[in-house]
Structure formats: structure tokens, C-alpha cells
């Protein structure tokens, strides 16, 4: 691959320039646009996208009124939850609260679930039927599972064969199952077709489960059954698996009958497209996904279940005054990652403020890095910089860890992954890792 590599410093530089360039001459939008009433911007979802958007709206223009609606008081991130499964991270270190957003940035944080949206009246209904009015709405709803799309994979099935694709009780359930499995057992991970949250996620998960097995249950096996013929950072993962775990991990591609078409959660058994049955001791199904449910209520999803957006602004073409960011959107080639949601949070903050001020949207530029930890002290990454060309989102440059790197390089990337996590958590929620 002859793609340009970007180092961490350049990425942070880009990142910084987006922030700086996007601070509009926006002071006093509130007074200018809406008389004495500052405009009300409501953000739904307090993950990487929503929390960043709320924070940066207030950073760019303290005069606007920003409300963030998020059910959890403490948000646990999907990024690094695989490291918890692998025994490298404490679960509590993945939790982030909202105190800093409220105290340091003046975001009004409401811990409730948005249950409905009226885009005509410009209101959002909360659990308990309270209604809030908004002038602009930013949705960062993440993903929901398409229950039943994969035959046999229902809510009940997920209590037996967890997905653990949203960090929380599902993650704990999977961890518990791994811990109670006997040495010599088989862990099966079912990976879906694109698009889904976190393209390298299933392969990092396989790596981290392998790390746990290597330390505690070395006779165990890992089978990755895939509905795809290739995956993110594939050669690097496969090299890393070989170097760290020998032949513990077997990956079965779609063309080798990896596509699972039926799940029997009670028996921890799966059936593939061409009729092979595999029996697991621990079964982890990463199921087909769609935009978080509130996007449907707002009427911004399309037939695919995801949300089309106008590339420069992330405004919905289907509802006035509604913007959508993060995993829920169709923003390919940008991947569905926490980092992407974070950078979209900044660009959407700038776009909303520009819209309120009657100004043109600043030219957006987005960045992404996906780090994956294959083993302790063994990390890999892929990075990209994105912009809009001819009305479409495109990758302008990008890079991936070299295949011929030495151990020192991999060790440093594992360290960079941790530094990345701490930096992005701080940038998103204003929180430092506690502990």
C-alpha cells in the first residue's frame, strides 16, 4: 500500500485546526437571531458524537442554549470494552459522567430517554411525557439491533448469546460466560456484513478473548465466522494473531461458508449459509444493526435503516432543522467509529451555528484513527482524513500500520491507543480517566 501515513501529531494538528477554523465569528448569535430568546439546540445522545457536539456548541458560542438528553448518568464506551474482556482494562475506566459538561461548559444535561420527536412542532418528548421545544435538533443516537433479522437472534437470545456491542450489562454477561467456560472450550464470534459499528471491532474482540484464553484457558479455540470476505486491517490482524496466539484463532470468510444464517442461542449453536453447524461453549453474536430508534421517530432514516445526511452539514434532507451524526449516519467512507462521531460532533456544532447565524457552513474536514489492540504491548491502527468533494464525502488521505514493523513499533502503537483513549474521552466529556 502506498497510502500516506499520518502520525499522531499531525492528526492532533488537524483536529485542532478544525476546532479553530470552525469557531465562527459567532459571538452573539443568540441575540442577533432570536431577539431576546437564545436559540435552543437540543442534542439527543451523550456518546462520542452528542457529548462532543453539546460541548463544542457552547465553546463556539456560549450564548446559545444547549440541552443534552442522555439516559445514563455514566456512559460506558464501546472503544476499549474489548480490552476489559481481555483483562487489560477495568470496566470503570470506561465510564464517563456529565458533570464537566454541565459545570465547565454550561450544557444543560437531562438524564432521560427521548421517546418521540415532532419535527413540525419542533419538540422532543421525554420518558414521563415531558416535552421540550427546540430550534435545532442534533441526533447522535448510535445503533440499535435489528432483532430477528438474523434468524433466532432475539432480545431473549441475547441473554444467552450476548452481542456486547453496546458497552454495559451485555459486556459483563460475555465476560462472565468467558470466565465460567472450561479450558478447552470454543468461543464463536459471529461477524456481520457491512455496515456496522466499529469495523475492526470483531477482530479486536477475537484478539482480546485470545489474550484471556492464553493466560487462563490455553487449550481453548476461537472461531470467527464472518459474513464478509475481507475485513478492516486484515493482514495486520492475521499476522498479529499468528505472532501472539499461534493457531488459536480461526477466521472463516463468507466464501468459505462463514455467513451465519441461523442462531440457536439455547444450544449455543449456529448454522451457516451452506448448512454447516458449529457448536460453541461461549457464543457472541455481533448482529445486523440500524440507526438508534429515535432516528426512526424523527423520520430521518431511509429503507436501509440508517440516516442519509447532507455531507457538508450533516443536516437531514428529510426533516427541517434536524442534524444527525455518528454511527447512525450513512457517512461512508468514514467508518462508524467513536473518533468519527467526535469529529462530526465538532463539524455539526459549527454547521448549526452557521445556520442560525445565516452564514455559510465552514468547509468541514474530519479525521479518524481506529486503534486495535491485538495483545498487551501489540497495537495497530488505521487513520484517515475526510472532506467533501463534488458533493460527496471522500477520504483525502489515510494510512495504516506497516506490515513489516518490529515489536517496538507495535508496542508504541499499543501505548498510543491508550493515549488516544484518554485524549478523546477528555475532548468528548471533559473527563479524565479516574483511577
Amino acid at each position, binding site marked *: 500500500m*502506498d497510502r500516506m501515513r499520518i502520525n499522531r501529531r499531525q492528526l492532533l494538528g488537524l483536529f485542532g485546526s478544525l476546532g479553530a477554523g470552525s469557531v465562527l465569528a459567532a459571538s452573539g448569535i443568540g441575540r442577533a437571531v432570536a431577539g431576546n430568546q437564545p436559540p435552543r439546540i437540543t442534542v439527543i445522545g451523550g456518546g462520542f458524537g452528542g457529548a462532543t457536539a453539546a460541548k463544542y456548541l457552547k465553546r463556539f458560542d456560549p450564548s446559545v442554549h444547549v440541552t443534552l438528553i442522555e439516559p445514563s448518568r455514566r456512559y460506558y464506551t464501546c472503544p476499549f470494552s474489548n480490552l476489559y474482556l481481555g483483562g487489560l482494562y477495568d470496566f470503570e475506566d470506561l465510564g464517563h459522567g456529565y458533570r464537566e459538561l454541565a459545570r465547565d461548559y454550561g450544557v444543560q444535561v437531562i438524564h432521560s430517554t427521548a421517546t418521540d420527536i415532532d419535527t413540525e412542532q419542533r419538540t422532543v418528548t421525554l420518558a414521563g411525557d415531558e416535552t421540550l421545544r427546540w430550534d435545532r435538533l442534533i441526533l447522535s443516537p448510535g445503533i440499535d439491533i435489528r432483532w430477528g433479522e438474523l434468524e433466532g437472534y432475539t432480545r431473549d437470545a441475547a441473554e444467552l448469546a450476548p452481542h456486547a456491542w453496546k458497552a454495559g450489562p451485555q459486556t459483563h454477561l460475555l465476560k462472565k460466560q468467558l470466565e465460567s467456560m472450561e479450558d478447552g472450550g470454543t468461543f464463536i464470534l459471529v461477524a456481520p456484513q*457491512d455496515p456496522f459499528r466499529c469495523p475492526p471491532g470483531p477482530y479486536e474482540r477475537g484478539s482480546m478473548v485470545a489474550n484471556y484464553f492464553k493466560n487462563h484457558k490455553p487449550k481453548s479455540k476461537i472461531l470467527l465466522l464472518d459474513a464478509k470476505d475481507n475485513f478492516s486491517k486484515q493482514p495486520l490482524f492475521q499476522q498479529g494473531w499468528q505472532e501472539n496466539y499461534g493457531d488459536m484463532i480461526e477466521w472463516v470468510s463468507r466464501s468459505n461458508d462463514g455467513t451465519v444464517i441461523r442462531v440457536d442461542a439455547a444450544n449455543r449453536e449456529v448454522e451457516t449459509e*451452506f448448512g454447516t453447524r458449529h457448536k460453541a461453549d461461549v457464543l457472541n453474536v455481533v448482529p445486523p444493526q440500524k440507526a438508534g430508534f429515535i432516528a426512526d421517530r424523527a423520520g430521518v432514516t431511509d429503507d436501509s435503516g440508517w440516516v442519509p445526511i447532507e455531507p457538508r452539514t450533516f443536516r437531514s434532507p428529510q426533516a427541517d432543522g434536524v442534524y444527525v451524526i455518528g454511527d447512525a449516519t450513512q457517512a461512508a467512507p468514514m467508518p462508524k467509529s467513536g473518533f468519527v462521531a467526535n469529529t462530526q460532533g465538532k463539524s455539526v456544532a459549527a454547521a448549526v451555528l452557521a445556520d442560525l447565524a445565516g452564514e455559510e457552513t465552514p468547509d468541514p474536514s474530519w479525521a479518524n484513527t481506529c486503534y486495535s489492540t491485538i495483545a498487551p504491548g501489540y497495537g495497530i491502527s488505521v487513520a484517515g482524513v*475526510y472532506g467533501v468533494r463534488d458533493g460527496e464525502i471522500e477520504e483525502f488521505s489515510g494510512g495504516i500500520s506497516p506490515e513489516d514493523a518490529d515489536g517496538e513499533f507495535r508496542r508504541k502503537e499499543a501505548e498510543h491507543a491508550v493515549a488516544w483513549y484518554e485524549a478523546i474521552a477528555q475532548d468528548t466529556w471533559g473527563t479524565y480517566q479516574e483511577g
Partner: protein
Amino acid sequence: MAVTRRQFLAWGTAAGTALFLPTAGASRAGWERIDAARDVLDGAEPRSSGIRLDLPSVSQDGSSISLTAEVDSPMTEDDYIEALHLYAAGNPTPEIATLRFQPRAGKARVGMRIRLDESQRVVALARTSQGQWLTAEREVRVTSSGCLVRADTYASDNLFQTRIRVPDSFRSGEPGEILTLIQHPMETGLREDDDGEKIPKRIIEHFAAELDGQPVVEAEFFRSVAANPYLRFFVSPQESGELELTWREDTGEKVVESRSVRV
């Protein structure tokens, strides 16, 4: 099994120069822009009902995109779908595949995996046994995701290995779906190796399914069929019999498999 981004770009350039007709206008039907499609129509005007073409509207992996095409038809001796032609207007050569059905297929529906070089329109043309033409088309956006950088080597250890799935049992005269796959790189002849040498074209060019010696479905594959050619189709047996499947490579090499069909 994957085509790298660079190879895609190489394809793209070829497509750009070879394909875009100066007369192409946005309002024209997809088939009007494709020479090969106009040739098979030979002056006939297709109608755009009774035929469905399904592809994902956005695809993050242009090297293998699922396609389903279905044509409404009673599939009787007097009235059936004879042929289904599939085209990718923006590929270096637009033909994807031509499928020929017999009434005993029971249903004119196929599933395949195809290659798309770039965002473009995919077109289906079907001909009924009574000489009518039908057409459907889908716009597909192809991106390659920044988290989806892939390898560019084909596995060669299992070349010609097949996978087949036949329903456990059929009801007499009711169509059941057959799944087939053969391991094959489907080298386009457009790729270059590391030394800049063209890798010669090498594809599975023909597939045939026969039930007790009688043709059911035949397929002609072109370079726009994805590596490891995958085909799902229907067969509607009256009684138990033997289904014979034959794949032919452009070298002449053949792979033959058979499966019992139980009614």
C-alpha cells in the same frame, strides 16, 4: 479475493475513457447507455414493470456486492422468462452475467455477488418466451471505508472447491432454492502484479444446472462477477432426481458436481 484500492482506481480510469458515451443524458434509461444492452434488444423497447433488481444503495466493498434479480412469470411452457441480462454501466466491460431459464426452474429469480468499480447504475434486462422485454435498474454508491483497508492476494489452495446447498426436500412442482459457490479468483485481466505485469484474465465463464439431463438454468459469467462466483437459483422438480452442476473455466477446465433432489 479482494481488489485493492489502487487496482480499483486503475479500473476506474479505464472505465472513464471506454464507457461514457458523449450522448449519455441523465434522463435516459440505463439500458440506452450500454452498447451490449442495445445490441440484445435489437430495437425493442423494454417496459419497466414486473421485474425487480435489488442491491444495497451504498456499498463499502466494491469487490463483492450482493445482487438479487427477480422477474414475475408463471414459468409455464407457454410463458416463461428465457433470459436475464445484467449490466454494470460503469465497469470497464459492462456485462455482468446472462442467465437462461427453462420453465422447470419454477421461478426466475437469482442471487449473485458482483464487482462494481465505482458508484454507478446496475441494469437488468429480461426477455419473456413471448418476446417481450422488461428492464429494471438501481443506482449504487460504492465507497471504500477508511477502516476497511484490505489485502490483495487471492487464496489459491482451494481453487475450484465448490459449495452447494439443496433443500432437504421439495414438494412436487414447487420451486426450491439452490445455493452454489465455487472458489475462483475471477481474474479480470485488468490487474497488474507487483512488477507491473498484467495478470492474465482467468474466469469461470459458464455455469449450467441440469435436472436428470434436462437444462434448468444456464449462466454466462463475465469479469464483473465477484471472485468465488456465487449463484442462487430455483428448481421446481416434479419428482425426485439428480441435479448436475457444471462450472467451466475459460481455459476449458470443468468442474462437475451432482446432488440428489428429493420430492
